[in-house]
């Protein structure tokens, strides 16, 4: 049976703490939410006689070869209980490990390393059978006991324990069967098993970690075997000859190289130092699209659920942004089209909320104010005469050259309606600290990429807000009971129409409360030379098509290099 998955694999900022449980949509209506494409950003390749569509391989797979991939950033480690996996982290994981469940192209959750995962009638017990004859890289077998031991470590960890509080126990009922008992019914539980907490490692690695070895050697069941890792330099893995998926992988070797600077990363691709690169700068797409010899895919064309959004976050409990009229003025002063043209290269379309056209939750009328500088000026003037001085705030961003540009654009737009704006740049770690403690007035951020809106509950809930100075995940401290109610409705209902209604309500409320000023969709892209085949076309073990490009994450298993 297909189930909607909820928890997505994202950077830690956007990772929903799944403590709140999940949502399910039983039945085949899942297709309504699946594979929504937006019409913008066509990706193309001009390599003759190879792919008709980038990332989809044509012809017979060729065995052998070494693939070099340039990453945006380095991972901090390979042990799921103690490390953060962002987009880049998941690429490493996809090489070395297999997740118990995986996301299909239609958005449903399918078994991957597990053979099946069946809930009981009340959705509080899930019985999982493992695939037989699967071996870890060190030859040890995949058994239910190993899975249980994985979960013991995951639950005990500060990082991942939170995501598993709903799991009361994980036990091995026989050699190949694992039973998950939940504290409360959660039909969508298996979605979490497609994320970081679903990747299984071998017993030897768990033992090393428990023995306090700082860097346990990665041992997984995945298509590639760990060879060596030089942090901030390169990571190499070689083909797993005993991989349980017959005939896979095709490649002999994969090397991952983190190259932080975008232009340098593109230069490395052009000089052949790597065969494919990821990017979070939409201008990369511009620079390579249509170039012969390259294929480009991006996350604008294959959206499942909610895409990551770039926005300006406003603190709703400190001055002057605690005044709704100020927030409205700030929203109306932003000309999204201009921002997108300069910041994002004109690649994206104006956004009016969390969802994009093509999503069932999308409505054209979200109540989010449109660009109207005259009206903004009036509001600011009213505020100024009421308070005696113009509203004045600091707009924060991270020390990134593109974001430096966008805040200067926004600053001018706000100043033109009479607001007094200074700009500050801080390190990412500091900015996150500021968010958590509520020590900001306005700041840039990107978040909310989630296959299901329920995963974003923690960011918008009234239960996760808190006073300035204390730790709160509802960063803007926007405590809106209507949103809370709608999120809970969406979580617990099994009726699609009610769900859609609930999340449309959330979207409209956000457009009313204005804790977020939307800028554009946050785009991930991948550029590969034309010889890299099939990097966005994974097939799941049960024959279904897997989700090809999950906001920067793709599967290396079925990639081959054409001659």
């Amino acid at each position, binding site marked *: 049976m297909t189930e909607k998955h909820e928890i997505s694999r994202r950077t830690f900022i956007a990772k*929903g703490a799944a403590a709140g449980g999940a949502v399910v949509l039983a039945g085949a209506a899942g297709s309504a939410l699946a594979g929504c494409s937006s019409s913008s950003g066509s990706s193309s390749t001009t390599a003759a006689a190879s792919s008709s569509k980038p990332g989809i391989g044509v012809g017979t797979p060729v065995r052998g070869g070494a693939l070099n991939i340039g990453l945006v950033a380095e991972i901090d*480690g390979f042990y799921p209980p103690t490390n953060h996996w962002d987009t880049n982290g998941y690429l490493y994981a996809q090489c070395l490990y297999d997740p118990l469940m995986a996301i299909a192209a239609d958005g449903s959750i399918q078994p991957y390393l597990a053979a099946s995962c069946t809930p009981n009638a009340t959705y509080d017990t899930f019985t999982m059978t493992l695939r037989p004859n699967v071996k870890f890289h060190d030859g040890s077998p995949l058994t239910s006991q190993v899975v249980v031991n994985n979960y013991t470590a995951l639950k005990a960890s500060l*990082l991942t324990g939170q995501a598993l509080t709903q799991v009361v126990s994980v036990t091995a009922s026989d050699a190949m069967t694992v039973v998950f008992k939940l504290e409360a019914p959660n039909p969508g539980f298996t979605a979490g098993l497609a994320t970081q907490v679903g990747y299984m490692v071998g017993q030897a690695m768990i033992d090393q970690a428990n023995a306090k070895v700082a860097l346990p050697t990665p041992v997984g069941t995945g298509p590639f075997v760990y060879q060596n890792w030089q942090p901030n330099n390169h990571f190499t893995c070689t083909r797993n000859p005993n991989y349980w998926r017959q005939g896979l992988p095709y490649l002999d070797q994969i090397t991952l190289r983190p190259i932080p600077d975008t232009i340098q990363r593109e230069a490395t691709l052009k000089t052949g130092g790597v065969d494919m690169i990821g990017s979070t700068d939409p201008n990369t797409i511009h620079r390579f699209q249509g170039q012969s010899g390259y294929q480009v895919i991006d996350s604008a064309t294959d959206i499942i659920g909610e895409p990551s959004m770039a926005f300006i976050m406003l603190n709703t409990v400190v001055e002057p942004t605690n005044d709704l009229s100020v927030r409205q003025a700030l929203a109306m002063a932003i000309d999204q089209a201009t921002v997108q043209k300069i910041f994002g290269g004109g690649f994206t379309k104006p956004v009016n909320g969390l969802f994009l056209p093509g999503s069932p939750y999308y409505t054209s009328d979200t109540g989010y104010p449109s660009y109207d500088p005259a009206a903004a000026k009036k509001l600011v003037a009213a505020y100024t005469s009421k308070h005696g001085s113009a509203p004045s705030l600091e707009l924060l961003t991270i020390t990134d050259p593109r974001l430096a540009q966008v805040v200067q654009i926004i600053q001018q737009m706000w100043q033109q309606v009479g607001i007094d704006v200074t700009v500050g740049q801080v390190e990412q770690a500091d900015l996150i*600290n500021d968010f958590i403690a509520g020590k900001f007035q306005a700041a840039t951020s990107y978040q909310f990429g989630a296959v299901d809106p329920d995963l974003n509950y923690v960011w918008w809930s009234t239960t996760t807000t808190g006073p300035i100075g204390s*730790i709160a995940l509802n960063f803007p401290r926007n405590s809106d009971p209507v949103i809370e109610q709608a999120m809970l409705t969406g979580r617990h209902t099994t009726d699609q129409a009610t769900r859609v209604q609930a999340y449309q309500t959330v979207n409209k409320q956000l457009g009313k409360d204005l804790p977020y000023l939307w800028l554009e969709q946050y785009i991930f892209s991948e550029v590969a030379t034309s010889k890299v085949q099939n990097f966005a076309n994974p097939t799941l073990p049960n024959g279904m098509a897997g989700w090809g490009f999950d906001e920067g994450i793709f599967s290396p298993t079925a990639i081959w290099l054409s001659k």
Partner: protein
Amino acid sequence: MGKYLIRRFIQLLVVSFIISVLVFMLVHLLPGDPTTQILGANDTAANRAILLKQLGLNLPLWHQYTIWLNAAFHGNLGTSYLNHESVTHILATGAPVSIELILISQLIAFAIAIPLALVVSRKPNRWLDNISTTSTFGLLALPPFVVAPILVAVFAVGLGWFPATGYTPFTQAPLTNLHEMILPSVAITAGSIAVYFRLLRSDLISTLQQDFITMARSKGLSTTRIMWRHAFRPSSFSLLAAAGINIGSLIAGTFVVELLFAMPGIGYALVQAVEQRDYLVVQGISLVVAIAFVVIQFIIDFIFTIVDPRVVRE
């Protein structure tokens, strides 16, 4: 001689100790702590408290410092809070990168600056001097983060002569390593060329006006001999001093080039660690950098005494 060495060694210890205290204080004064980076979305008050306790960060500062110092004495500089790599390992793999970058860039700088200065100082303000002076001022106006992308665009992407990024250890593949090192070394050498050329030229011009030069000439010594033995030696004082400081500032200053060329040096590691509040990494690298600097100064002072015997070793 023995006393001199002992005194310098004590100086080394004292300086290292003071620096370690200063770095410790400075980096702990920064707002925030590594827990945000580690916990991410799982950051709750409870988790943060637990994590701080696990990492030993809830202890009073002086206690944390003594624990660290004690461990350092036993050769254990700790591990990164984030990727658990040991600080010693970070240094062992990162130091060769940065050192090699600095060495090659300084060699290039000396190879260009010294001969050029020797030639132009004899005839100042002639055309060669004017061109050299003009060019060096041009070099000063081009910092590494400007030179690097230009070099890559022209020599890596355009001509394909060099790789755009990457690092292979010298011990693994010496030729590949040198091949990868050229562009980044050239990117950081510009400023050094300018400094060394200008200083040496200025000093040489002054020295060449001393009458003992005329005397040497009148004794019939050749120009080359005079330049090298009589002019260069006394003029190399300020050059050496500048070299010492330059190298010292470069030790942790290569991070821009390391970032751009994706080289895992200690400059980049240090900056990352400060930003992520990876205290032990910051402290460990800073300590070693400081020690290295003091040692380099010591070597330079020693060379002083060889170059100019009039300088008395205190």
